[in-house]
């Protein structure tokens, strides 16, 4: 067992006591990554030498007597959608070939300030559009629990890298489930914070009103540590909120007595995988045995979520992705006759089919004559979806649902059918539309093959501490998080 197998909170204690050095950890991380990558392809790029140098710097600082926080010297994997100064940031797309980030995303700067060493570029569906990483222009990532299966997406590289213990933690982004769904399918903890909790500055936008950055970790405590480090108001992001950032680890008491947990009837549907259904219901029973109170709730507009999501997300994406035109950075078609020709050929060659599909859809729903029927209507239904949640939170402290309707599917299984693929986000998209927070925590496995299942805990706006408390109490009362994939 290497240091890479430990959690951050375990490592932090040993680093602080100087029992181990950050350089030791870095070496184990690099060794593990080297061993795993030929099988997983979680990383698009990584630089072991750079990690080692940064780790040694951190060890020197500690040796000089600097008081460092619990994240100091911890390598954290970074999804390819976040700018890290001096590194590529291709968003899994050919169109950003050659682009070198001139600045750090705010989350990256905050992690650095906490002593974290950003490590590598983690694979993803192109521009975060997808649920399997099959839409990456640079090859699919394999699920560590079954290499023939997808790791989920779009942050599939982040989930797989943490599940395979290549890195102790990673950052991803979640627009409709892109953190929680792969976390569930890879058997790790994945958290989507409340919209506005974490700055989006430096996150290449897919759908600006839905995107949030969040952590992947081996357990809830680590997720709480990383979340605390990246949260807070950022003057560079007008949509970040000046809500105080608590010490999330303080909420992890294991005590859920008297907490009211809502079960939305719309999230336990016929046609859902039986093993998933059983695992989630067992998790609910476990929480009851810990003293939580279960109440049945209804989120009546849930069914409209996917339709609303694919209108709003694609509309915003059609504008957000317009900047990839070959003029200032990234790839550019050669020998174009005029600007229009340059745009058409650059974008035609640079974007994959799913991204192209969504740009066209988004352009359509915003077009004159269709705007009211699609975009405006979708915004109204979005308000209803949010209202459903706000009313539910009058009655309960958190909501429990499955994270996904089924465990990881096989590579290629749904690639040709985008609509079926979209359905894998059915339990996660409404959370983004409502702007609330959610976390996925492992809650069991399917039998044959053995694949992870996730429990999703949803909280009210800025209710991160509550859902982490619930997820942590459940996690500590079970052994699921201790199971590791054999690769």
């Amino acid at each position, binding site marked *: 067992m290497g240091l890479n197998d430990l959690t951050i909170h375990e490592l932090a204690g040993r680093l602080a006591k100087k029992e181990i050095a950050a350089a030791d950890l870095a070496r184990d991380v690099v060794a593990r990554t080297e061993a795993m990558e030929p099988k997983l392809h979680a990383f698009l790029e990584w630089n072991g030498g750079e990690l080692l140098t940064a780790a040694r710097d951190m060890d020197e600082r500690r040796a000089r007597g600097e008081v460092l926080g619990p994240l100091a010297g911890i390598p954290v994997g970074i999804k390819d959608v976040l700018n890290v100064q001096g590194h590529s940031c291709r968003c899994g797309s050919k169109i950003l070939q050659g682009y070198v980030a001139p600045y750090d995303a705010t989350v990256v700067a905050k992690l650095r300030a906490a002593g974290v060493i950003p490590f590598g570029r983690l694979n993803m569906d192109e521009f975060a559009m997808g649920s399997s990483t099959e839409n990456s222009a640079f090859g699919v990532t394999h699920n560590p629990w079954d290499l023939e299966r997808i790791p989920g997406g779009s942050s599939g590289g982040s989930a797989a890298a943490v599940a395979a213990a290549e890195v102790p933690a990673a950052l991803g982004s979640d627009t409709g489930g892109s953190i929680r769904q792969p976390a569930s399918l890879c058997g790790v903890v994945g958290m989507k914070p409340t919209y506005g909790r974490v700055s989006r*500055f430096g996150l290449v*936008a897919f759908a*600006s009103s839905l995107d949030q950055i969040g952590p992947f970790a081996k357990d809830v405590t680590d997720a709480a540590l990383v979340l605390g480090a990246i949260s807070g108001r950022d003057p560079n992001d007008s949509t970040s909120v000046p809500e105080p950032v608590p010490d999330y680890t303080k909420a992890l008491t294991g005590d859920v007595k008297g907490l009211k947990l809502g079960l939305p009837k719309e999230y336990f549907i016929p046609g859902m995988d039986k093993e998933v259904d059983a695992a989630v219901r067992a998790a609910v029973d476990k929480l009851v045995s810990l003293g939580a109170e279960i109440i049945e709730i209804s989120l009546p507009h849930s069914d409209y979520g996917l339709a609303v999501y694919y209108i709003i997300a694609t509309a915003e994406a059609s504008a957000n992705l317009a*900047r990839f035109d070959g003029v200032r*950075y990234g790839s550019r078609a050669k020998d174009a006759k005029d600007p229009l020709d340059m745009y058409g050929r650059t974008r035609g060659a640079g974007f994959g089919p799913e991204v192209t599909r969504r740009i066209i859809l988004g*352009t359509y729903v*915003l*077009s*004159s004559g269709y*705007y009211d029927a699609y975009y405006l209507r979708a915004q109204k239904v979005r308000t209803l979806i949010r209202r459903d949640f706000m009313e539910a939170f009058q009655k309960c402290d958190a909501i429990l649902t499955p994270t996904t309707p089924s465990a990881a599917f096989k590579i290629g299984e749904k690639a040709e059918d985008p609509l079926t693929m979209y359905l894998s986000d059915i339990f996660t998209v409404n959370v983004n539309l409502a702007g609330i927070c959610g976390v996925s925590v492992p809650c069991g496995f399917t039998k044959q093959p053995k694949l992870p299942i996730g429990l999703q805990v949803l909280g009210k706006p800025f209710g991160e501490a509550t859902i982490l408390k619930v997820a942590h109490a459940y996690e500590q009362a079970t052994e699921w998080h201790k199971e590791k994939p054999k690769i």
Partner: protein
Amino acid sequence: MDYEICIGLETHVQVKTRTKVFCACPTEFGAEPNTNVCPVCLGYPGSLPVINEVAIRKTVLAGMLVGAKIAHHSKFDRKNYFYPDMPKNYQISQYDLPLVIGGTVEYDFGVVDKKRLGETKVCRLTRIHLEEDVGKNFHFERTSGVDFNRAGTPLMEIVSEPDLSSSDEAFAYLTALKEILIYGGISDCDMEKGQVRCDVNISVRPRGQKELGQKVEIKNMNTFSGVRHAVDYEAQRQIETLNRGGRLVQETRRWDDMAGVTESMRTKEHAHDYRYFPEPDLLPVSLNEAWLAEVRKLVPELPSAKRKRMVGRYGIPPYDAGVLAADAALADYFEAAAQASKNPKSVVNWVTNDLLRDLAEAKLAIGQSPVKPPHIAELVELVDSGKISSKIAKDVFVEMFKTGRAPAAIVAEKGLVQVSDTGAIGKFCDEVIAANPKIVADFKAGKEAALNALTGQVMKLSKGKANPQAVRDALRGKLSG
């Protein structure tokens, strides 16, 4: 047939801010290409806009200056279209909820014809909104380039109703608008730096018809005289087309300044669909009463009101009042001097003639004037009390401008006090009479003009200090005696 011309203007004005509208890059003009840029104004992946409060404040102030309604709730939208000078391929603008709604601009025909000074009309405004400027394309022999220094500069778009009915009115409206914006410190309106650009909407209709005719938009003119010429050309073109029995189509045209013609860019069928939608990266703007009250304190008196007030209060000619009112700093200077003087009419002459001339020659702004307002009042008092002659006053003014000293001090030091003492003047007169027997003889023969020549000699002898009237009286007395 008799046609009526209907003109509405969309005027884009650079808002005077230190930094750009959505990032901290400077708005300075003339820097090396692509030096005043950052990930935000270059539209780099992951960058986000943050609104510049000064730009909002100045847009709202502009609204207050034109008596408009200020929207308590406003928002930004994305206007989508592809062009190489546009970093994000969408422009952050305002669509259905602009910051400013309505308002009026009163314009004076005096700027097109001095004789019509004081003849005014009012143009209604539709709205004023805030948006970002784009970069600038350059074309070289085989390649093109874009300078993004200007991208993200705050622009105010001021949209007028189609109330203007001639090129003169369009010109007078633009002049009045510019004056207001400069007055409020909202924009420098520097035409040479492209700080004011205009789109013109123009249509013609048979006089008396209620509905507007087919609208044609002329894009992107950056001089007021260009607007004037384009309007004249385009109105004529439309009228001639109709008179020939032709039909006008809704279209966008371009003004070719060199050729002096407008030419079609695109018709309605090819109009852009900008696919506006709310900008998700910026919060809606809510302006509360306390904030608005702070802005209201910045509202200055407008030129037309100032002109009228100064004519009434100081009794100065309307033309001079107009000259003063056109420049707030100059008007303030004049008022400071006039209030210290019993003779504002004389003050205005000194300010608009001598002072402005010398300032122009020295290339100084009114704020840099070496002559201070109380000194003008003092100079006027020296003349009015008979202490110095008007002629001497001119010399004193030259000295005041050169040294910045008070006129009384200059007069005292140089001994320039006017001599009215008959004894001293009598002595000068005797000398001149003795030395100029021929002129004396002319005068005695009835040549009245000869007295002027003798007076001049006496003045010369007294080094200009003698009171000319006293000299004439003394000479006449001695020669007729």
